[in-house]
């Protein structure tokens, strides 16, 4: 076997010696320097690499926090307070980790909406999209386990409410719940296993991210025009064009992130979690972290449906609201990827964004008065969007003509796009 020819450009003998035996340098060269990307990627394409960076930040800070943390229901709360008061830079590690969860979700949600606007989930990137949904589910589980660890009031009662959802499973629900909790109710055994899983799942996420990237490289990135790359004239090497673009975006992102870490570290959290867990006292209101609020709103908004009690129906809709994303590549029947060329979908897209924000608002308030009404309408619209609107729009919408190629659309001669299709929208 001759091996793969080295692509690394260097005269360094050591590098060449290693690369011939272990092609690490070639891999880096292929993946991060020569890697061709469509030449028209905009800043919405920054959020994939930002999400990767957040994963690294969370794992690194998490590993060091775990050195100080005690997963025992009698000691956990105080061990976290010790991190905040006594451990050198413990406050910094914890605030980076705590706010990091929020920023990880911000970045990932933008990444998902980017994919939805530009049709990145469409053929041939269905599995790439579905792996992304798997990552989202794993992130939600990891975040939930992590939120339980400080063993504050919201940790304890959030865990009680969420684990209770499993009791709606017919026949085996209670057995499953006891098995999950390791006791009759949320307690010491629950905390210990949640800590173990909170440490495990991020590495599972790393694995799925690896698959996500393999699937990405198979057909390359989608782009704002949603049309396929037709040749080298449509592409640019990753370095320096996109390394510099990613780095600039990273700088902006880190400024905002740092503002939260240093100036308002507890704004995104709940004050009730600084009260130690008390199984005999419920906090006035149990709300999850902000990034789960839209789903929490769906859970609470569903009324009794025929013979299905509200609690079971709510749990089904909650699960369905995420699982439906797996089917998105087939629910959207339009063959045009980018909303840029889809005159109806480009508006409908913003309606689902507004709908998710409305659900988030409803999830943060007690289900009373108008919040019940809005919650039900928004829940209904959420499923209406995916199950009815998307398939139908694809059938009757008349998309605008697509440009011949990426380079034709983005290269201008005398201010006019070369070979541009007529009436290209701004």
């Amino acid at each position, binding site marked *: 076997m001759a091996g793969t020819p080295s692509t690394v450009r260097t005269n360094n003998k050591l590098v060449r010696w290693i690369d011939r035996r272990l092609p690490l340098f070639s891999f880096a060269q292929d993946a991060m320097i020569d890697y061709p990307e469509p030449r028209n990627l905009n800043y919405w394409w920054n959020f994939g690499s930002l999400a990767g960076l957040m994963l690294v930040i969370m794992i690194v800070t998490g590993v060091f926090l775990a050195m100080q943390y005690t997963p025992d229901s009698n000691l956990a709360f105080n061990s976290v307070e010790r991190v905040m008061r006594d451990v050198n830079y413990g406050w910094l590690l914890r605030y980076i980790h705590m706010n990091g969860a929020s920023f990880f979700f911000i970045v990932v949600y933008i990444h998902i909406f980017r994919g939805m606007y530009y049709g990145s989930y469409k053929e041939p990137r269905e599995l790439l999209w579905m792996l992304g949904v798997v990552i989202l589910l794993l992130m939600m589980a990891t975040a939930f386990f992590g939120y339980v660890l400080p063993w504050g009031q919201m940790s304890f*009662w959030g865990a*009680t*409410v969420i684990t*209770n959802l499993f*009791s709606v499973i017919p026949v085996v629900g*209670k057995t499953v719940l*006891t*098995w*999950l909790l*390791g*006791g*009759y*109710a*949320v*307690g010491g*055994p629950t905390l210990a*296993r949640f800590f173990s899983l909170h440490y495990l799942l991020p590495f599972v996420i790393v694995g799925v991210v690896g698959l996500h990237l393999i699937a990405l490289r198979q057909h390359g990135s989608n782009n704002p025009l949603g049309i396929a790359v037709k040749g080298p004239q449509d592409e640019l090497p990753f370095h320096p064009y996109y390394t510099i673009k990613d780095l600039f975006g990273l700088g902006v992102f880190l400024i905002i992130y740092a503002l939260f870490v240093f100036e308002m570290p507890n704004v995104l959290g709940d004050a009730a979690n600084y009260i130690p867990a008390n*199984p*005999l*006292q*419920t906090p*006035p*209101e*149990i709300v999850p972290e902000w990034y789960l609020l839209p789903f929490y709103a769906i859970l609470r908004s569903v009324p009794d449906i025929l013979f299905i*009690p*509200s*609690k079971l129906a709510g749990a089904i809709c909650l699960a369905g609201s995420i699982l439906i994303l797996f089917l998105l590549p087939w629910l959207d029947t339009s063959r045009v990827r980018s909303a840029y060329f889809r005159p109806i979908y480009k508006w409908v897209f913003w309606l689902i964004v507004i709908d998710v924000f409305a659900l988030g608002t409803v999830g943060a308030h*007690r*289900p*009373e008065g108008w919040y019940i009404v809005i919650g039900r309408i928004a829940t209904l619209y959420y499923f209406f969007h995916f199950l009815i609107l998307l398939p139908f729009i694809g059938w009757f919408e008349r998309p605008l003509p697509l440009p011949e190629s990426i380079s034709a659309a983005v290269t201008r001669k005398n201010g006019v796009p070369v070979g541009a299709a007529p009436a290209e929208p701004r």
Partner: protein
Amino acid sequence: MADLAHGKPDQRGLSHAAGADSHGVGTRRDFLTIAGNALAVVGAACVAWPLIDSMNPAQDTLAAGAPVDIDISKLQPGQQIVVLWRSRPIFVVNRTPDLLQTLQQPQDLALLSDPNSEVLQQPGYAKNWNRSLQPQYLVLVGICTHLGCIPSFMPQANSVGPGWIGGYFCPCHGSRYDLSGRVYSGVPAPYNLPVPPYRFLNPTTIRIGENPPNEADFSLDSVVQI
């Protein structure tokens, strides 16, 4: 590959579909493949089971769920005490005759979702108007049947709102129960508060977690909703 050697290339990949064989019988290799795979599945299940079962409640956790005895000799009329049994709050209330009277007024019963305790949320010996062994003493699992919060004990009339006759109010999502733990209609909670198995050892001692000797066996696990 072996199938190719037999001159039957269409059999590739159908090795466990023995019926597809042109002779109508599976080969020895088919049998070995099925048996081998089946054994591997059984083996994997045997390996997985200790891992799965280790997550079930441990012996000390189960032992901590043994019955507990409560001395109620100092429980004053109208007073509630809360004890922990199996990590769950157990409410024990000494109900005054006045409070007991509110439990039978037809206009109040009409507001309840399940006034006759039809849903299995209590042992047979507590399926009565006062949901208890002795009307004076109420014993409940203090966990809201909506999403597991702990309802507040509000025995005073009008303490939750006008017309309130005394009962339990859940601060989380506003569920209401009367002083027998029966849920009102039109609140998020679907069922009455559960009654745990219990018995009187003597007039001033209640044992939680054990049924009276002459009553049918009842386990808290059998209720519809805790």
